[in-house]
């Protein structure tokens, strides 16, 4: 019997290629293609009064210069509102190239296509755009005050207002013996994949077709959007996602202006055209996330049990809303984490500002929700003088209460209903891992050495694997090679390995014979995309179902060939044999030959399937009425709802009594994503998630000045953590299978990031003894907070 692959720490199939410089990212393609560059707005809010492109044409090598005036048909119309929602009363999107007005620094105004990028950028430097500047709206306070408007026709700068309520919050709150109010703030960060966006378009003039390579998280989405914009038949547009250098959410947005303009220019010029985003462009013209102001009122009993939770928050959606209000909806619903809130009311306002637009970034609204809830839990514990884990524990949904329906609508329009999870067991593991009960002694010992340490905790639940569907296609070639295709894309999650593990098990073949293709519309035309920690759940189950279709067909053909019942057969290592009779067997590749009756032979194995080979029933057609040629099959996985993963993190931090420097001494994670297909990859996802969370908690923020200029739009100034800033992560796992899908999977991609700001705030609060209400936090900010909370400055630095 072959070794079961699912559950094994299998080394990644994609690595040897990527390690040796043989990866193919979008900028590695299209040598010789024309290159695009963009003139982008230097103003946060302005009317365009004139564009003078004459000087650009002076340069040798300039092939085209386009402004909005040049855009034909739907290319010149506003970009789509991808996810409309009834609560979004004022959706606004930009144009591929700005029309009349710009609403954030970085908005594309002119496109240049030239022989190479150097020339294209030189040409951009020669284009003069005249602006009449308008006062910008920067920051949520200004958006809320609405003294100025981002869009003239959007009153109050509010794009959407949504309120959900379960139970009677006012009554429950009034009756609660204890009440607390928290005002919280969390700042912007961004995905910042190491590879920015990029598009390479190949126009085939003879075939009037387009092949587009994009660094995207959804090839099918880009394909449909581009076909619609360019007025092309879907069948004439193919989108191939090459290797992608990280996504983390920003590349799920589509079509980006460049994804429309590059193929449009390629068709217009009859030439290959490529655009590779540079780092500054990525800062000012892609997307950010996280910025929210939150107000929480909580009512609870004397044991710390929640009776009523009333949350209001304001979400900064930037200048436009192409991705709708997914992020604040997730905050509003996932805020509840593993807890029963009592009566719950949440209302949010999604606000326009003259800044880069806001779309999902790993965690996608959950880090903010978790932060609000966990700050609240700590506040309750402090108020009642209870251990922080005890308060959490008392509010947990219990395993026997699963499935647990919160009575709210989730981001997919379906009920927020947890499928499984064992929160008490997770907490017990975490306390053990971090040594929760021994921390008091450690704190005392540290204090004796003049050191200040704190312990923090954060718990979350993450809705993962949202629909609507993904598909799998599995094909066995006559040489035994197994080709697997799924439509969603890959940005480092190891899909070529985990999906191969699943198919190897389901089909009974060797892992090395399975070859997986993702994100190529030529191979799988129906797909949604890679987001919401859905890759393994959706495509994992889809390829499993497809493999089962193929297995059934293989057994049926083998049963005929061996003249036994299909029930008596098994497949291992690509060989179908009669159970208990090892001598009686047929190779899967031979079954592939038999599955496809041939007229022509092109190799020795094909000869066996030709019309003069073997015996046949002359009264039956070579391919039965209800059958198809070939040993291949396809199936789709479409769940009724999301599956809910969960986890709990704890951290020990040390804050310098003098400089307020913050150091993470230990970081512990207990994580439950159901069945783990490849625990090595799951751990890697957790490590990376935590690192991004640490960046968001302590280092990363988007610093806009009042004029709407992003002051830190480079890696010099926007501080992504290096190895020196990221702690060693200690992990433990629980595997509570999801009852919702055949493989029992839950998503793992975003989990590591979600609670980190909450955990670090909790730990700093524990070290310092005063509440932390704004994240990220820097040493100067902590130092200032100490001054606020310690009226006697002389006490500072003397402990």
């Amino acid at each position: 019997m072959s070794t079961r692959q699912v559950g094994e720490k299998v080394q990644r199939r994609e690595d040897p290629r990527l390690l040796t410089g043989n990866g193919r990212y979008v900028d590695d393609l299209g040598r010789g293609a024309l290159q695009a560059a963009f003139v982008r707005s230097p103003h946060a809010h302005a009317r365009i009064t004139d564009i003078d492109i004459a000087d650009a044409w002076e340069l040798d090598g300039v092939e085209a210069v386009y402004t909005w005036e040049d855009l034909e048909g739907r290319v010149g119309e506003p970009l789509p509102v991808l996810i409309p929602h009834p609560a979004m009363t004022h959706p606004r999107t930009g144009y591929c190239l700005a029309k009349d007005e710009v609403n954030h620094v970085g908005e594309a105004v002119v496109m240049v296509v030239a022989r190479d990028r150097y020339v294209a950028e030189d040409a951009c430097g020669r284009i003069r755009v005249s602006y009449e500047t308008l006062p910008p709206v920067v920051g949520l306070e200004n958006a809320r005050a609405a003294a100025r408007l981002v869009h003239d026709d959007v009153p109050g700068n509010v794009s959407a207002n949504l309120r959900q309520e379960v139970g009677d919050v006012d009554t429950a709150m009034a009756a609660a013996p204890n009440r607390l109010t928290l005002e919280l703030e969390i700042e912007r960060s961004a995905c910042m994949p190491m590879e920015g966006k990029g598009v390479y378009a190949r126009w085939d003039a003879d075939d009037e077709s387009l092949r587009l390579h994009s660094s995207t998280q959804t090839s099918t989405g880009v394909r449909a959007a581009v076909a619609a914009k360019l007025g092309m038949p879907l069948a004439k547009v193919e989108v191939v996602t090459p290797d992608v250098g990280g996504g983390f959410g920003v590349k799920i947005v589509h079509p980006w202006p460049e994804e429309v303009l590059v193929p449009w220019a390629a068709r217009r010029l009859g030439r290959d055209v490529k655009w590779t985003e540079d780092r500054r462009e990525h800062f000012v013209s892609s997307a950010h996330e996280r910025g929210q102001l939150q107000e929480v009122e909580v009512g609870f009993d004397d044991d710390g049990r929640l009776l009523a939770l009333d949350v209001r928050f304001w979400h900064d959606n930037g200048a436009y809303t192409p991705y709708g209000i997914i992020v604040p909806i997730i905050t509003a619903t996932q805020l509840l984490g593993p807890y029963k809130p009592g009566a719950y009311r949440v209302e949010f306002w999604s606000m326009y500002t003259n800044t880069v637009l806001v779309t999902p970034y790993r965690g996608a609204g959950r880090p903010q929700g978790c932060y609000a809830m966990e700050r609240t839990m700590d506040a309750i514990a402090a108020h009642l003088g209870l251990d922080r884990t005890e308060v959490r524990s008392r509010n947990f949904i219990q395993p026997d209460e699963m499935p647990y329906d919160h009575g709210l609508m989730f981001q997919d329009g379906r009920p927020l209903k947890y499928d499984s999870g064992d929160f008490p067991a997770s907490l017990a593991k975490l306390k053990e891992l971090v040594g929760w009960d021994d921390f008091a002694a450690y704190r005392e010992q540290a204090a004796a050495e003049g050191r200040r340490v704190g312990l923090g905790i954060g718990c979350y639940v993450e809705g993962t694997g949202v629909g609507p569907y993904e598909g799998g296609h599995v094909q066995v070639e006559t040489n035994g090679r197994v080709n697997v295709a799924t439509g969603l894309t890959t940005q480092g999650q190891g899909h070529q390995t985990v999906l191969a593990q699943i198919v190897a098990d389901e089909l009974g073949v060797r892992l090395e014979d399975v070859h997986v293709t993702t994100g190529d519309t030529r191979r799988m035309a129906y797909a949604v995309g890679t987001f919401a920690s859905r890759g393994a759940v959706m495509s994992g189950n889809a390829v499993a179902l497809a493999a089962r279709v193929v297995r059934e067909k293989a057994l049926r053909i083998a049963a005929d060939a061996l003249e036994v019942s299909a029930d008596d057969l098994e497949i291992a290592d690509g060989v179908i044999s009669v159970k208990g009779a090892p001598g009686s067997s047929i190779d899967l590749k031979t079954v592939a030959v038999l599955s496809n009756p041939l007229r022509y032979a092109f190799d020795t194995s094909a000869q066996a399937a030709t019309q003069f080979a073997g015996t046949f029933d002359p009264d039956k057609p070579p391919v039965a009425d209800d059958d198809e040629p070939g040993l291949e099959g396809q199936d789709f996985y479409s769940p009724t709802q999301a599956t809910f993963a969960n986890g709990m993190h704890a951290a020990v931090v040390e804050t310098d009594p003098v400089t307020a420097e913050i150091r993470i001494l230990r970081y512990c994670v207990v994580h439950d994503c159901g069945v783990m297909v490849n625990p090595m990859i799951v751990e890697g996802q957790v490590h990376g998630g935590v690192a991004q969370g640490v960046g968001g908690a302590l280092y990363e923020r988007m610093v806009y000045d009042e004029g709407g200029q992003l002051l830190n739009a480079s890696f010099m100034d926007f501080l992504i953590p290096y190895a020196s800033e990221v702690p060693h992560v200690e992990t433990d796992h629980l595997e509570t299978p999801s009852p919702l899908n055949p493989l029992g999977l839950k998503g793992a991609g975003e989990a590591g990031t979600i609670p980190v700001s909450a955990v670090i705030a909790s730990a700093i609060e524990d070290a310092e003894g005063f509440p932390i209400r704004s994240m990220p936090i820097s040493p100067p900010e902590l130092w200032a907070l100490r001054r606020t909370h310690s009226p006697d400055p002389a006490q500072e630095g003397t402990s």
Partner: protein
Amino acid sequence: MSEAAAEQLLEITLRVNGVRRSARVPARRLLSDALRHDLGLTGTHVGCEHGVCGACTVLLDGEPARACLVLAVTAQAHEITTVEGIGSDPANLSPVQQAFAESHALQCGFCTPGFITTISAFLVENPHPTPEEAREAISGNLCRCTGYQNIVKAVVRASEIVAERAEAGR
């Protein structure tokens, strides 16, 4: 056409991965662009174009350097090693490359070539690093995927593989 229209091109010769390669480039051509676009060595990646991320790290005479901060014309005096020079055959990985595969030290792979070159040079200088020294050695390169933990592990593992291969080859 104005006087600024035509840019002078220079004939340069670069010694890359032990091979002499020629190109005609303008004086301002970055080494990273020359490697990638003139010589077709796309293993060297560009993540920031301002010398911070380290994805474009190559070795100049064995020393790590940011290829995005070096002009191609000035690189003529040096022996250049890219990730392809460390190992370009997926079936024949260098010790550092093999350690990365074993340790799951890469996810999207975009920053990886810069780490491979940096670590390969580091291990020459310090063949038996501690995990702390390994962490220090990689702290000039950005990775957005892995959280660095498995890269630290890979540095230590690579030093073992070097020793194992030396032992096997004895």
